[in-house]
């Protein structure tokens, strides 16, 4: 079994960076304020919520990419990779949802608001869950792989359409909480954010590699079982 030390390095590095970002968030990055001068403490969620959200979108690219690769080559490894990518995406998507809901509660006073990002994200969450429900209810291995690949590609294409239509809808029905944010970030804030983002991507990569190793193990066990006695 080829050991991939990069996964461990990334795991440690990602852990360090996100921890660093965690401290920087509270002790280094300056607090932002509401227009009336009160401190906007909830803004701190931003440093982790956004990196997780962006990581989830990035990982979904791999779902679609490996889905296409699988359909072209019919090599099971690509389906496995697509599946793992979607798993990691689901993990990030759920975290994004959870942190997003907490932020919404603080800033808008409600747990949920049918706002473009939230709406799109909700649909995306359902679609990603649907991906796994589809996998579980298809028995034949190859069929499962083909269906999952096709659905993964559809989800990947559908997500931006959902996003843009909700955005576009908002622009014709303006909502009270229009972004209203200060343009651009201060350098310290930006640095904190970037560190958190890079760390999160490294963690995402490490998760992906670790899961992949597990799947490779599983395949070897399966192969051995066949060899030993069918």
């Amino acid at each position, binding site marked *: 079994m080829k050991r991939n030390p990069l996964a461990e390095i990334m795991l440690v590095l990602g852990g360090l960076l996100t921890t660093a970002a965690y401290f920087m968030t509270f002790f280094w990055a300056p607090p932002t304020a509401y227009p009336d001068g009160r401190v906007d403490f909830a803004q701190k969620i931003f440093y982790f919520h956004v990196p997780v959200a962006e990581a989830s979108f990035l990982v979904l690219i791999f779902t679609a990419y490996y889905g296409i690769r699988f359909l072209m080559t019919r090599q099971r490894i690509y389906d496995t990779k697509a599946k793992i990518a979607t798993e990691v995406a689901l993990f990030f998507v759920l975290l994004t949802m959870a942190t997003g809901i907490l932020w919404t509660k603080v800033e808008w006073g409600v747990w949920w608001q049918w706002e473009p990002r939230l709406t799109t994200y909700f649909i995306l969450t359902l679609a990603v869950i649907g991906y796994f429900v589809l996998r579980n209810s298809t028995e034949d*291995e190859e069929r499962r792989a083909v269906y999952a690949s096709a659905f993964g590609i559809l989800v990947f294409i559908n997500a931006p359409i959902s996003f843009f239509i909700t955005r576009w809808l908002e622009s014709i029905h303006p909502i009270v909480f229009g972004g209203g944010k200060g343009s651009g970030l201060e350098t310290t804030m930006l640095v904190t954010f970037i560190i958190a983002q890079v760390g999160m991507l490294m963690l995402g990569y490490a998760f992906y590699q670790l899961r992949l190793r597990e799947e490779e193990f599983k395949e070897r066990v399966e192969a051995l079982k066949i060899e030993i006695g069918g």
Partner: protein
Amino acid sequence: MAESAQANTAVQVRDLTRAFGVRKALDRVSFDLPGGAFLSIFGPNGAGKTTLVRVLTTLLNPSSGTASVCGSDVVTEAVQLRHRIGLISHNPLLYPDLTAEENLLFFSEMYGLDDPKTRVRELLESVELDHRRLDVVSTFSRGMLQRLSIARALLHRPDVLFLDEPYSGLDPHAMDILDGLIAQIRGDHTFVMISHDLDKGLELCSHALILARGKVVLFEKREEIDVPEFRATYRATVGTGVA
């Protein structure tokens, strides 16, 4: 058509492998079947019989190796190949809500036949279903369905006929009819049959193939087969179980 079926090789299989991940449904299968032959494929459940037939009928692509039927490659010349093969399965593969005639006409259109009406009438007569041609297929008995499905398989005058356990679920009478029909068309077709029934398979075949765990255990001409020994080999494969 008949001449080309008699020509040298009807089915050529070279190192055919069909794998998904570590599981190999077919493992380097190779054999040549001359035109006009009748091949019976035996093997336990999960030995790869169905996969083999599905690859040869272009429904599945091989992972590696090549296969050709009537000189057409299963991957690159799939469309030509499909014109020259027919399939008779234990499933009738007919639309139950269409009449016998509508079913055959539909498949004639799919094959782009020139004069579908005459061809369909002619076939219905030959399987003795002419009088029921306006009846919906769901009213047919098992034997009638099987006859109609033979007519369907012969519509486009294929050279090679694939039979996927055609005898399963047939009553003795329907079996006799099927025997008769096969005997009738035997001369100008090549047959590839999946069979669970050793006696039936050996009775019909000119060549026999035993598959186990995706591999060819034995491929022999009927004349060269020593039946008791063959039986023993077959029995041994059943124990090996599923690949």
